[in-house]
Structure formats: C-alpha cells, structure tokens
C-alpha cells in the first residue's frame, strides 16, 4: 500500500519535475545566471512516510541554517534560497522523484537524504546530472568512494563499530548478538561487526535482520532472547524500527542491553521508546555529537523546542554543518554548482562549524579525517531511566577513543 502511495507521489513529482527539467548544464546554470539572483539549494527529506519526525526536524534545521547564512551576508552577497522536496521515507521511488525534481529546479547542490538507501538513489542522479550532493547522515564510505559529485559529512561505520567493540571488551560483553536492518547502513554495520568480532576475540551468538520499516520483530527477538548474548549491537538508522525492537523485547521480558549508532537515539525515539528502554538492562547510543560542546547542546535544545521533537544523535548537527560546508564551498565556486563546486568542496579541508571542535569531518575521498565534534572520536551515551534521556558516559567514550578507527 505504501508502494502505491509512493508511486502516486512519484508520478505527481515527476510531472512537476518534467515541467522544469532541462539538461544537466542548463539546470546548473539556473543558479548562476545573475550575480544577484539567489543561489538555489535543495533539501531532500522524509516529510511523509514511515518517519516524518525526521523530516520535520530536518526542515526546521535547514530553514534555520539558510536563514543564518543569509543573515551573515549569504555567499558573496547572494542569498541562499531553500527548496525542499519530500522523499516519502524509505522509498527509492520517492527519493528519485525528489532528487530529480530538485535537479530540474536548477539547484546548485542538494543536501540529504538521511537514509543510506535514499542517499544512494540521490547519488546516482547526482552523478548523471552533475549536481553536487552532500549526505549529512550516511556513514557508509562505499556510498561516496569514487563518486565525484557525492559527499558526506558523517563519521565512518568502521569508526563507530571499532568504538563499540572497545566498549564490549571493557564491559566483558562476550558473546554479542547483531540486530541490523537490510539498508546499506545496516548491511555496512553488520559487515563491520563481523569483521571486527574476530579481531577483538568477541563471539557473535546470533545475527538477525529485518527489512525496514519493520512490521514485526517477534521472531528476531525470540532468537536474540535465547542466544546467550550479553549485548545486542544494533545496526539500524530508523527510529521507529529501533523503537519496535525495544518494545518487542520489553514485552517478551528480554533485558539484554542495546548498543548502536543511528536509530537508538534518533529524533523522537527517547519519547517513543523510553518506557521500553527502562526495562532493558542498559541502552547505549554511540554518536559523533558531543553534548559537552555548549554550542552544540544549545543548538539541539533550540531545535527540540522549535519542533516539539526531542533531538538526539549526530544527524541534526551534521545537517546544519552540511549547509555551512555548502556555503563555504559555494563561496569558493562563486555560487556555481557542478564541477566548480566539487573543486570548492575539495579545497575546504578542515572546517569549523557548530561542532566547535577541530573541524567537521567532510568525507571527500574516504581518506580525509579532520576530527569530529568534541574531545572524543565518538561519544557514548547511556540511557538514564531517572531523567528519561541519554547522558554522556565519559569513561566509556575514553575507552572508545582507543579504537583503531580513532585514527581515521
């Protein structure tokens, strides 16, 4: 049924896109025809579908980011103009329509989408249409390796996975179980977990997966419950999926700790999964967002208040940073998209944004690493039942810093 909805939406968007569609060169020239004309910047976000909380948050952050850049003079005096398109959630059809529509509208670049599956769909279009794409959440290096027009400003899967195994070693979690979805992100996490398990001498008791969005995780939880695992490593970006996993575990009386990046502390998850998290013997989130950085925490509080959705994880800040990075690169390309913007991005190097740290990590070639948000490579948060929130665990974060991935 969701597919039918997606098809209808795709047809409507494709129709809209066709009216404005031109050749790759003509679409990029739209943003550069006049020195005073606004520079069009696109955002592809899941405003509908299975996770509209994410889209609502992204819309608010993007509007704030563009307003902030414009308030500071824009790009050489030219203002940015934001164009938002709905990807419809985990739906390559919807994502393709959204990216094509943005490309057809003549944007200099597109920012999004938060799921690796949709980012992948967008990257294909970016490469074909020569429109720069910056993914603000995709931790899978394979998505951007060798793709001239596709960029990420997220950490690498190997970095979070390495930090998780350091933590497992310190907490004597052996064996562990893996629960991952079948998106590119989930598969990358799963692959990385298996690769690192033997390196760390940690056994994998069981490995379960699901197709996102999940409808029932009863069978998966039964396998996890009787696996003898001391902790469950989660590879899932979808907040609703992780919430369902936690609730199913709580209902079945399974108390094994959950640990992972992405969905565990995605926007809206603490409110939705809080009671289930309380019943587990621990829930740990690993993220490049460090609440010890005052500006970053203030930003998160502001967006939480603005949207009414409790923000968590690194995605909100990475999205904000993506706009700052885009503005800086556009300044170098004189507002032009296409290859000049690619060159502008590659010339940026270290970049100071909200993170307040040594610079945001912008992955151009999968070999650059210039630090993340705070003093740690990855910050580990622990669910606190008393405050119903994730609190940073500095001792675990320090342990995680000894991961080989910390060196990039």
């Amino acid at each position, binding site marked *: 049924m969701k597919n039918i909805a997606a098809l209808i939406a795709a047809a409507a968007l494709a129709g809209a896109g066709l009216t404005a569609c031109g050749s790759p060169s003509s679409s990029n020239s739209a943003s550069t025809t006049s020195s005073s004309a606004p520079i069009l910047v696109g955002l592809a976000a899941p405003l509908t579908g299975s996770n509209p909380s994410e889209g609502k948050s992204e819309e608010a952050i993007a509007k704030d980011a563009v307003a902030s850049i414009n308030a500071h003079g824009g790009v050489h005096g030219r203002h940015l103009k934001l164009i938002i398109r709905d990807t419809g959630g985990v739906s390559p059809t919807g994502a393709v329509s959204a990216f094509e529509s943005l490309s057809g509208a003549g944007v200099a670049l597109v920012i999004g989408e938060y799921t690796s599956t949709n980012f992948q769909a967008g990257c294909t279009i970016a490469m074909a249409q020569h429109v720069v794409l910056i993914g603000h959440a995709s931790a899978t290096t394979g998505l951007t390796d060798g793709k001239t027009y596709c960029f990420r400003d997220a950490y690498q899967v190997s970095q979070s996975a390495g930090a998780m195994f350091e933590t497992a070693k310190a907490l004597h979690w052996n064996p562990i179980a893996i629960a991952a979805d079948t998106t590119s992100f989930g598969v990358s996490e799963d692959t990385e977990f298996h690769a690192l398990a033997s390196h760390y001498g940690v056994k994998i008791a069981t490995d379960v997966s699901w197709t996102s969005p999940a409808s*029932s995780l009863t069978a998966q939880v039964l396998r996890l419950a009787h696996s003898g695992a001391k902790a469950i490593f989660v590879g899932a970006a979808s907040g609703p999926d992780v919430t369902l996993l936690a609730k199913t575990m709580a209902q079945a009386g399974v108390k094994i700790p959950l640990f992972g990046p992405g969905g565990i502390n995605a926007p809206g998850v603490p409110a939705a999964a809080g009671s289930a998290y309380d019943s587990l013997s621990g829930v740990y989130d690993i993220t490049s967002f460090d609440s010890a950085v005052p500006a970053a925490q203030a930003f998160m509080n502001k967006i939480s208040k603005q949207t009414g959705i409790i923000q968590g994880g690194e995605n909100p800040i990475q999205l904000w940073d993506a706009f700052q990075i885009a503005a800086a690169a556009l300044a170098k390309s004189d507002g032009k998209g296409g290859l000049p913007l690619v060159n502008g991005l590659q010339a940026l190097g270290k970049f100071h944004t909200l993170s307040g740290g040594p610079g945001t990590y912008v992955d151009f070639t999968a070999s650059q690493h210039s630090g993340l948000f705070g003093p740690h490579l990855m910050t580990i948060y622990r669910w606190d039942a008393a405050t119903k929130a994730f609190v940073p665990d500095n001792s675990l974060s320090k342990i995680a810093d000894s991961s080989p991935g910390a060196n990039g």
Partner: protein
Amino acid sequence: MNELAGAIVSSVFLGTALGLMALAFTIVYTVSQVFNFAVGQYMILGALLSTAVHFTASPGVNDLIAVVLVAAMGSATYLVALRWPETHGAKPLTLVIITFGVGIIIEQVAIMAWGSYPLSEPPILAGHFLLYGNLVPDQGLLLVAVAAVVVAGLGVAQRRTIVGKQFLALGANRATARYFGLNDLVLVTLAWGLSGAVLALAGTLYLPLTGVSITTDLSYGVGAFAAAVIGGLGNPGGALVGGLIVAFVTNLMGVYVNPNLTDLLTFGLLFVFLVFRPGGLTGNVADLVGPRA
C-alpha cells in the same frame, strides 16, 4: 526448548489476532463479495484510538470505546465510499481499489495525528507468568479467550439467527434477496460495522503485546488476507485456523531459518493456496473464484 516454547506462545497470540482479522475480512466478503484491503489500518486504528486518545483511565473502557468508533467507521466507509459505486454498476475490482484508497487515507491521517513511532498500549490484564523462560502475558490469554467466544458466537449466529441467514442469502444472490424483501443497505452497512468492530477488537487486544504503529498495517493486512484464503472465505472457524497456520509457519521459520523471511513466507503460503486450493481448507472454490451475483 525455550526458544520453541517462545515461538509457540507468540504464534498462538499472533495467529489469534490474524484469525480475528480474517474473520472481519470474511464477514464483509460473505455479504458483498468485496475484499476489504483496509483491514490492517482498521485493526491498528482501533488500538491507536484506545492508546493515543486515552478516553478514560481504564484500558478496558478505552478499548470498548475504540471498538464502537471503528465499527461506526466501518459502516461509514461502506455508506460514504462504496455504496454509491456499488449501486451504480461498479465492478468488484473497483470496490477493492476503493478499499485500498481508504486504507491509504487512514494510514496517512494516522501518521499526521500520532506519528509513526510505535506507541505502547496499556493492556487490560497486566500480569504474566513464565513458560520455559518465556514471558506469557495474561493479555494474550484474554485475546485467545475473547477470540474463541467471538468466532464461536459468529459461527452460531451465522447459522441460527435471522440476520446471519440474511447475510448468507445476500451474499449468495443479492438481487434475489432484495426481491424477497431483504434490506441490503441495512444488512451490508451492518456487516461493515461488525467487521470494523472485530478488527478493532483484534487491535486493542493484541497490539498491547507488540506496540502500536500504523506503518505495520500492510504486514498485518497481508497476513489477514492469507489467513482468510487459507481458512476458507465464509467460515469463521476457518479464519481462526488460517490465522494460526500463517502465524506458526512464519514465526517458526523466522526463528529457526531466517527472521527476515516472514513476509516472504506469508506471500508464499498465500500463493500456494491460491494456486492449488483457492477455496482454502474449509471453503468452497466458488467462494473465491465464482461469479458475483
């Protein structure tokens, strides 16, 4: 043994819920030969209304109110969306597509109203006991007990009451039934309402065991359709058996083979029955493939 016991327990509960949904499916089909593909949405809507609207402090009363509301919505669906096309020569396929549309509308409105994150519905019975290390919630036993009463009651009502017989007569040949004075508007509206009530009952009693999210609608809807086909359309007891078969096959294969195959297995089962035994275990082939009167 622990894992097997867990799989059996969860299969019984899921199978009972799917059985109730299949029963709702079959009530509408018996009267009007229309496949209602919005069953998943109605089932979850019942639980959402009970949970998110929070009418009273009592989960049982909330469930009851939700059942009444969804029953009213079921009747309204027929009167508003289906009655006119049905009486103006629309083909059954058109009516089925309309039910798809109704489902999409319910899903999107529910997402706008309550989001897509699974909510926790408070159970009527909060207790539990352990069986081979597996938690068996009292709410699940309540679900099974209520389902048994509903299925038995509707089975008897279908054969022994005037309305039940009128339902069957209407389904067999609507033109003849109307000729003999049956009020098809009232009867079909009643059937849609009854179907909605059964769906809401399934949702409010089962979803406290799993979490309530409207985005799981399609999966439950397909499971219910498979259960109805396997059990045999038109047979309340068959619907329950069909639900249990779907749940046991998908859960056991999910636990022991690959948990990511559950939807595939549901479709596979449906495919096998549609090809080799379209009348299901207890139904008549004509129920599924015969011409519409």
